């Protein structure tokens, strides 16, 4: 009995969180039904739902999604692995740091989006340029988080490794990486969010497929329903990435508090 009441209480406590988004939805639907705006300006929530079902059933949306995620996957994998590698090496060895830090710091000052025209000129408008842009966006949050994390490892850990005469490779895989997992994962989460945003922007500028291109086509054809579906899908995917990595962080960070 108490359990049921507890559930009801938590429902009441949480239901307030849905109030304002629901209110917005209701106002949106109401404005549409009254017909203040023409359909080219505002489509009803139901219309957006219908369009998204249509786009999904025709296979258009899955195809765009697949292309976007393919680019994101490759770019993020390359950028974050390079970031991890350089972050560890620069954190461990001062000489590596002094070679690369000034260059990396100056490149970091330029927003990724500003590199898009340059990269288009070098790599063309095909897949390579998008993957490079995503990799650049992923690289810097990861390298910064990794470098800071490695610098923050207690000195005693390194002394232990010296006592056991661990080879560098084992020092990295057995001590450095486990000790730095939580902050590095935070870096990965930031990197994934930025990569996703930059990829959508790159697809808006130059692409023949992908969620961003779908929105841009929708804009050019005055199909606001398609644009809204794109906005919702990009928001949802960004949200899922964030939540997913947060739960991984909570899971992998557990050992710290035992």
């Amino acid at each position, binding site marked *: 009995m108490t359990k049921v009441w507890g559930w009801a209480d938590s429902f009441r406590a949480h239901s307030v969180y849905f109030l*304002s988004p629901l209110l917005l939805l209701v106002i949106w639907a109401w404005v549409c039904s009254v017909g203040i705006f023409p359909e080219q300006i505002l489509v009803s929530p139901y219309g957006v739902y219908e369009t998204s079902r249509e786009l999904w059933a025709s296979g258009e949306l899955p195809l765009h999604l697949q292309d976007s995620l393919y680019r994101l996957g490759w770019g993020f994998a390359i950028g974050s692995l390079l970031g991890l590698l350089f972050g560890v090496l620069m954190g461990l060895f001062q000489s590596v740091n002094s070679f690369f830090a000034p260059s990396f710091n100056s490149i970091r000052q330029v927003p990724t989006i500003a590199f898009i*025209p340059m990269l288009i000129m070098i790599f063309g408008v095909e897949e390579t340029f998008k993957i490079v842009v995503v990799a650049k966006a992923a690289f810097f949050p990861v390298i910064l988080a990794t470098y800071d994390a490695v610098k923050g490892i207690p000195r005693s850990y390194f002394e232990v490794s010296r006592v056991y005469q661990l080879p560098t490779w084992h020092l990295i895989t057995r001590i450095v990486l486990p000790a730095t997992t939580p902050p590095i994962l935070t870096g990965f989460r930031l990197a994934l969010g930025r990569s996703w945003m930059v990829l959508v922007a790159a697809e*808006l500028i130059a692409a023949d497929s992908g969620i*961003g291109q779908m929105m841009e086509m929708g804009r050019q054809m005055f199909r606001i329903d398609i644009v809204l579906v794109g906005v919702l899908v990009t*928001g949802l995917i960004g949200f899922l990435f964030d939540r997913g990595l947060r739960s991984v962080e909570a899971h992998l960070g557990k050992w710290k508090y035992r």
Partner: protein
Amino acid sequence: MKKLNQFALRISRLRGFLLPIAVALIWEFMSRQGDAYAYTFVPLSQIILSFIELLKSGELLINLVATLQTTVTGLILGGVTGLLVGGLMAVSPTANKLIGPLYHTLRQVPLLGLIPLIALWFGNGLFSKVLIVSLAAFYPVVLNTFEGMRGVEKKYIEVSSVLKFNRFQLFINVLLPAAMPSILTGVMHALAFAWISTVGTELLFSTGPGLGGLMQIAQEASRMDIVIIAVASIGLTGLLMNNGLFRISQYLLRWRSVR
């Protein structure tokens, strides 16, 4: 011996230049491989010449000022609105329950993904640009204002209730100064996001003056030299603004007795 050490130190500082010099050499080498290569890998001398030309004609300055205007307008509009909304959420639990969830829902959408929508609604003029930049500045300021004011020590609020402050006095005299460090951190984030989104909107809308527009036109005309100059200006201006704002925030926080 000491001199030798200093010399070694100076040499090791030069290491940082090794990579850029190597890249520049490879770039110059590639540019001499033929006319086709020289299109992409513009000779370094050409970049310098174009830079002087852009400076002389005033083109660089006009575009830079236009971009700065969009950023600053957006930063002020978004920052002030963010401060008010965040403050309201911190003062009133009802407002927090109503606005909070909506804020966190809308924040999930990547800002530049909103550009097609905003372009459909408001066209691709200055208003749309400023709207997006304001939104970019709005989000971090709300979050930091709210968290800063929520983190104010209880004893300050107790003192203000002893002094019978009303809500407005509480806000101005207690919450705002106490949350200032957090708010200024939010403004620093807001500046970075505003700068990025200004360049992004200029690239995507490609109307009116601005460094993004300059880059877009240069790319279509295959003028790599201008693109590089624009990229460098964007990076440098961003860095200078960031440092300037940091100085200002240090000045505003000089009353704090930290360390």
